């Protein structure tokens, strides 16, 4: 399981360590930070920031080139490798998008308007 329903939206399934509070994706049986075995299921996302990215000019995995991939740091902390819907930049705010039936997800850029709105909060 990679995606979790959360109200109207979808989030990413991960783990939260009951002993040290470390957050991880995917959920692991043992916490990589403290070694504790009490790791509960937790929902992460949908918001994140692109830390690194690359474009690709060769199609693979049914994805037509050119396409973009990146390391996205979720607001909760975990970093994951994902496909990006458009050319990003480092520091770009992105949000989870998914085709739940196909268990496929990617991240889409959050527009300037939405970013400004968030900063105003």
């Amino acid at each position: 399981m990679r995606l979790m329903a959360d109200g109207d939206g979808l989030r990413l399934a991960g783990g939260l360590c009951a002993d040290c509070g470390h957050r991880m994706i995917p959920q692991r049986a043992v916490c990589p930070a403290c070694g504790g075995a009490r790791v509960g299921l937790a929902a992460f996302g949908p918001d994140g920031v692109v830390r690194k990215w690359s474009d690709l000019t060769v199609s693979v995995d049914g994805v037509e080139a050119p396409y973009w991939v990146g390391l996205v740091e979720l607001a909760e902390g975990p970093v994951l490798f994902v496909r990006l819907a458009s050319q990003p930049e480092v520091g770009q705010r992105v949000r989870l998008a998914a085709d739940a039936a196909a268990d496929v997800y990617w991240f889409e850029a959050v527009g300037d308007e939405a970013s400004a709105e968030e900063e105003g909060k």
Partner: protein
Amino acid sequence: MNDRRTAYIRGVGMHPFGRFPDVSLRQMTAVAVGAALDDAGLGPDQIEAAYFANSLGGVLNGQEAIRGEVNLHHAGISEIPIVNVENACASGSTALWNAIRLVWSGEVETALAVGAEKLFVGDTGRTLAALRMATDVEMTQGQALQFTAMYAMRLQEYVQSGLLTERHLAEITIKNQRNGALNPYAQFGADLTEEEVLAARRIAGPLTIPMIAGISDGAAAAVVSSTPHADASIAVRASILATGGVDGLNEGVVRRAISQAYESADIGPADLDVVEVHDTTAPIEFLYYEDLGLCARGKAGAYFDSGATQLGGATPVNPSGGLTARGHPVGATGLAQIAELVWQLRGQAGERQVHESRLALSQNSGGWLDGDTAVCSVHVLERGA
């Protein structure tokens, strides 16, 4: 130093790396093993145990199980313990790591480490899909991961900040391709110009075709023994295997493995005479200079510009041409690095021979897990007086 006995690389051998549609995995294995045994001055019956490294022979060649038994039997190695080793692109060095420990422990006098891989199967898409399995596939499925992009991302900060320029990316590629042209075992190798490298087809970020290790077939082997080669003593001074996935964006496993190797061999970067690193893309070699401590953080471009890592330099890196020029038949690469370093230490590397050298280091990485290289192995070899 502890009181364990010394393990020596007594013999090495290779089947050339390249595209060999008419040569089977077992035939390449037999060539590499035969050459390593000849070099060691031993017969197949003197090998007491063997580790067979191969990563993708199940999914690509259909031999999912007992690959070592099948391929080594063809090379005259049977009856003895044979262990199958899989650790993605670091499979070859992982086999060596095991063979060294068997000799260190006194369990055997002589063990064999072999790496062989056949990636050309007539369908590039199938090969690329197989290579993607060197990740946590449950997490990466549907994300169209390509390893070239992982390296482009590692270089991104350096390129965007100007610490590495396009000229740097081209020049390090030119160095490795030039070295590869002098290596009879190399798949590629050419005299390229900066314009040719930069104008070639771009695959990911700033990385163009000649900067990237291509699909390859090949095999390499090393005989590890409690007694050295008759003419040249090459001792194992450090043998490290480390796994990653815990350092996240810090990508710490390579630095961790190198630091463990320095500690184990009681040496530092200034002691190294010749180095082979895991340049699945030529420009990633810049980051390894810094991981190795050959230069300070952020100084890799300037260090390269000094000429230190060229064939005639103070610390030649990838005299073989590295992965990008020698080729990268996944499970064989780690042992090809060892073969190159043994030849260099013995003064048998022909036109690509570096200055007289005593201490050599190899760094072999594999897979990707949780933001980091999944596995990294580092070996340090020393030529006796």
